[in-house]
Each structure stands twice: as structure tokens, then as C-alpha cells.
């Protein structure tokens, strides 16, 4: 059986048939212009009385050439993230987001304990030395999550059948689009493809980090 749904945040278009494997929820995210949206966070939570978040993980966000790598991380509530600093220069990572406030000096050769994220929400990361460094951590209570690839696709595999609430988040999404979860029913032994088209264009992508390794 092949199930296809099109969830459009702006206008409803014609359904398209996309094959999907059994128990796999396939999410395809398109921008307002129809181009695939890369690097968006997608979470899927089963709707029901016994839903549990995914088990906490130990993740890492590196600092490479004055960039956070990856720029966007999704972790379940209770997870820890290490900031190993792959650069040879010092960084001072911070967040003043309500979901997790912290300050982390990353000097050469001085490793620091991982940071634990206990509250769901978006945590914006910065570097107190290099203003162009911006990163995000999405702390989620969802059991299933991932980031869209170059084709704007994410496949969440081995999902039990049932009804799910799918949310998307992208650092450059405008406010209105962020608040609209999609409900999908994943039948037993079947796949489901959800195509989401944003109603607003993404905000402009930020420029690359400055070439200079010296902070001025």
C-alpha cells in the first residue's frame, strides 16, 4: 500500500506519488519557491497516551574554521553535547536562550566537560570572540527526529503504526510557519510521504565567517 499526503502550509497542490518503505515516514520540505530546504529540523511524536521521548544521546558540535559543525543539532531532552574546538584558535561559546543558558571558554588544549540540555526548545549558540559564528541546538521531546538533506528529504524509519505529529523548524524560517504541526497517520506495514511547502520565503542566509583569524 502506498500512502501519499501533501501538507501545504500555504496552498494545496496536486498530490504526487512518492514511493516509501514500510514503517518509514518520509518528509520532504520545500521552500516557498519550490526549492528543497536543506538543514531543517524535523520531529515526529506519536500521538497517544504512552509516548516517550527518545533516549538521551551524547552528541558533539565541533568548531571548525570559525563555524559550528553541524550548524543545527537535534537532541532528545537530557542529552549532552561536547564542544571539542577543532580550531587552533580560542572560542568562547555561549547561549542566552531560555532553554539553556551557558558559557563555555574553549581555549587551546583545554577540553571542557559536555553541556547537558534538559529543557526542550531552541538554543542559539554564539561565540563571544567571533560574532559570525552562529549555531543551533533543538532540544526535543519527540521520539523521532532528523535533519533534511540536500534534497530537502528526511526518512524516519521503523516507526510503529499510528498517528504522528510532525513539526519542522529551520533557523531561517519566519515566525508564522513554525507554529503549524502536521498530523499524519502511518498505517501498518506501509510508508507515508509528507510533503511540506513553506508559505513564506526563508530569511536570507547569513554570510560566511570572516577570513581573518584575528579578531578585530
Amino acid at each position, binding site marked *: 500500500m502506498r500512502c501519499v499526503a501533501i501538507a501545504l502550509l500555504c496552498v494545496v497542490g496536486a498530490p504526487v506519488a512518492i514511493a516509501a518503505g514500510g514503517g518509514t515516514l518520509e518528509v520532504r520540505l520545500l521552500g516557498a519557491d519550490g526549492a528543497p530546504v536543506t538543514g531543517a529540523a524535523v520531529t515526529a511524536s506519536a500521538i497517544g497516551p504512552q509516548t516517550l521521548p527518545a533516549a538521551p544521546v551524547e552528541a558533539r558540535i565541533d568548531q571548525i574554521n570559525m563555524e559550528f559543525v553541524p550548524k543545527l543539532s537535534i537532541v532528545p531532552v537530557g542529552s549532552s553535547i561536547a564542544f571539542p574546538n577543532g580550531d587552533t584558535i580560542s572560542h568562547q561559546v555561549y547561549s542566552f536562550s531560555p532553554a539553556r543558558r551557558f558559557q563555555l571558554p574553549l581555549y587551546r588544549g583545554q577540553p571542557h566537560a559536555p553541556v547537558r540540555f534538559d529543557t526542550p526548545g531552541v538554543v542559539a549558540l554564539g561565540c563571544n570572540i567571533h560574532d559570525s559564528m552562529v549555531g543551533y541546538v533543538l532540544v526535543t521531546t519527540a521520539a523521532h527526529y532528523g535533519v533534511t538533506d540536500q534534497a530537502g528529504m528526511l526518512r524516519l524509519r521503523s516507526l510503529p503504526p499510528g498517528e504522528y505529529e510532525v513539526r519542522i523548524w529551520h533557523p531561517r524560517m519566519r515566525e508564522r510557519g513554525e507554529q503549524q504541526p502536521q498530523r499524519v497517520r502511518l498505517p501498518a506495514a506501509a510508508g507515508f510521504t509528507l510533503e511540506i511547502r513553506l508559505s513564506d520565503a526563508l530569511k536570507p542566509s547569513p554570510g560566511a565567517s*570572516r577570513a581573518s583569524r*584575528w579578531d578585530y
Partner: protein
Amino acid sequence: MGLLSALQPLAGRAAGVRRCHPLLFAVALALQSAPAAAVDVELVADLRVQAADAAPSFLQGGLGKLRADDDLSIATSRLRLGLAQPLGETWRAVLDATFSADDPDGFSDVTEAFLEYRPYPSEGWRTRVKVGAFYAPISLENRSSGWETPYSLSSSAVNAWIGEEVRTLGAEVQLDWLGTRMGRAFDAGLVAGVHGWNDFAGAYLAARGFRVQDRQTAIFGVVAEPGLKAYSREPFLESDDRPGYYLGVRWHYANRLELRALHYDNRGDGTVYVSRVDDFIWHTRFDAIGLRLETSNGWTVIAQRLSGDTAIAPGGFLILWDYDASFALLSREVGPRHRISARYDDFSLGRRNPGYAPSNSDKGDAWTLAWLYEPRPDWRLAAEWQRIHGEVSKRQLLLGEAPGLTETRLELSLRRTFRNH
């Protein structure tokens, strides 16, 4: 004794003149204190070869507008040392010095030396405080280490003048609102500076007009060797105990577009004569605006304008010059390692008082084309061609030459950077 005098325990020998040695002592002491992290060291050797068709340059006291002599030479090769020492988590000390083969300053070559306090942001707001000797946030092109420009070898006329005569010897507070960390696409900031040792900012500009070059006057340095009659050669002196100030705003959108505006006033008392430099104090004010746009496909556009006046008032009689300079720069990254840039400069300087001709005036423009290639992060090969035309009345007044002159220059640079980080 005024505020600036009180801040100046090691007064210069000449009566009424103080220089800024204690600022450096403070940094030197800070560098010796126990660090929380090791010092970042950057040593840069820059071999330059140039061929020019130009008048004797400002470095020989001439009226030439390029850092050049009328021959083939390696005269502008230089060595730069940059040190940045973290002091705990929120303080750091920075020192920058350049030793140039063509420089009359010898070893007095510290261009910046300051302590910076930068606490972590809180609730979207961030403060930064600098104390010492450093550049006010005016230039949008001089953003590399050592206040160099990554787009060309020389700086624009606007920023060449800043490098020659305008340095903050004092304190600056910057307050930023970090919207990019709160779901917005822009950051915004205010900056305010209070400075002394600024009595002769504008003196050399009024005497000689604009140049398009890359020499930065050292904190203890002189703007040029005496040749032709110059006004004060030492821009960073304090004699009137009147601190100057600047106020500026900044708006930064998506790390792509930056807008800045700044008002500067050194509040110099133009009635005061300073025998050490045989000159009156110059009262200099200007407004500077600028933008920098960086597109996603590798283009950079920078435009700046600076306009203001500078004046002395011997016996209370105001003698005043107006100046106005601007430039537009277009630069493009070509692949990951090449950059090509073109810049057009326009500048003018003239005495406002009517009926006192002849006097010095300067009007001209310049083209600069540059190619920079970085085969590795620590190596850079660059070539720059400059053509500048100036109508300089002093050429006629002092040398008996025609005021109009076009100078050209080709410079090659091979730069090697050594870092411990």
C-alpha cells in the same frame, strides 16, 4: 591639572606636552601577569617590490600621494608582530607593531596597544570596553589583523588618513543588541569613545591633503619626515587637557550588510600654541558613514564617506579647512584562493575662509586595482596598481610646479605569516 594630565604620570619633557607611554606600560604589565590561556602570536613578513612614476613621497616630506619613490625598490617591505593575551575569561591585551624598511620612525612602531573587556552576552545584550590605543570603528575595509585590508594592499584615502592621524588613545564602550541570537536577522550596536592625545589630528591633512597608502602612524610616531615645511609631525600629543569623543551606531544584517555612522570631535583648543611641534592645536570634527555588502556569490561592496573640518585659531582668529573624501570598492572572490578588487577614491580639501588665498587645497581622485592570491593560509601573493591624480596648490606654492599631477605605482607583495595558533 586636568583630567588628561592626571592620567599621564610620565609627562613629556616639553612643557605642556604629554605623550602616551603609560598606556603601553599597562599592556606590558598585563602581558606579564599569569595567563589563563597562552598568548596568540602572529608574525608577518611582507616583502614588497614596487615600481612607481611618482613625486617624492610623504615619507620623505614630499607632496607625493603614494607610498613610493620614483624608482624600483623594495623600500616598503615590513615585519609585523601581533600579540593577543587572554587575561582570564573576559579580558585580553592586544599589541600590534609594524617595522617598515621605509619608515622614518625607527623602532617606535606600535600601532595599537589596548586592554579589552568583553563579558559574555546577557539576555541579548553585550558590552565591550577597550582602554588603550586602538582604532575607532570607522573603516569598513581595514578588518584584517594589523588593521590591514583584505581587499587590497593600500587603504582608501578615507582610511589612510584615519591610519595617519586618528587613533583612540583613551577608552571606548560598545553596546550591542544580538538579534541574530534571538530569531531576528540583524544585530545593532552603539559605540562611544573618549580620547586624549589627539591635539594634532587633522594637522597633517590640512597641510598635505589626502594620500592613498597603507602606512599607519605609530603611537609614538610621526606622520612623515620633515622636508617641505610641515605642520605638526606628531599627531598623538595632548596639550589642552580637553578630551575628545566619538559616538557611533552600527547595524549588521544577516552577516551580509553592515551600516555604520560615527561622529568624531577631538575638541581641540585651536588658540593654544605648542612650542614642541611649532604649531597650534587643531580642532577636528567629522562625520563618517559607510556600508559593506557581501553577497552569497562572493562579491563585496564597500562604500564610505567622511566629511568634516579642521581649524586652528591663532589669537582667536579661526582658520578653517573643509575636507570630504569617499570611496567605493568592488571586490570578488575567485575560487577559494583568489581575490580581485577595484576601488575608486575621491577627495577634496580646501580652506573655507574667503579672501585668504593663496592657501593649500587638494582635490583629486584615485583608482586602485588589486589581485590577491593565498595558495595556503600562511602565504599570500599580491599585486596592486594605483593611479592617483591630485590638484595640490602647494606644489605651486612651495615647489613652483604645476598643481596637477598624476602618479602611478605598481607593487608586488609576498607575505608569509607565522602563527602559534
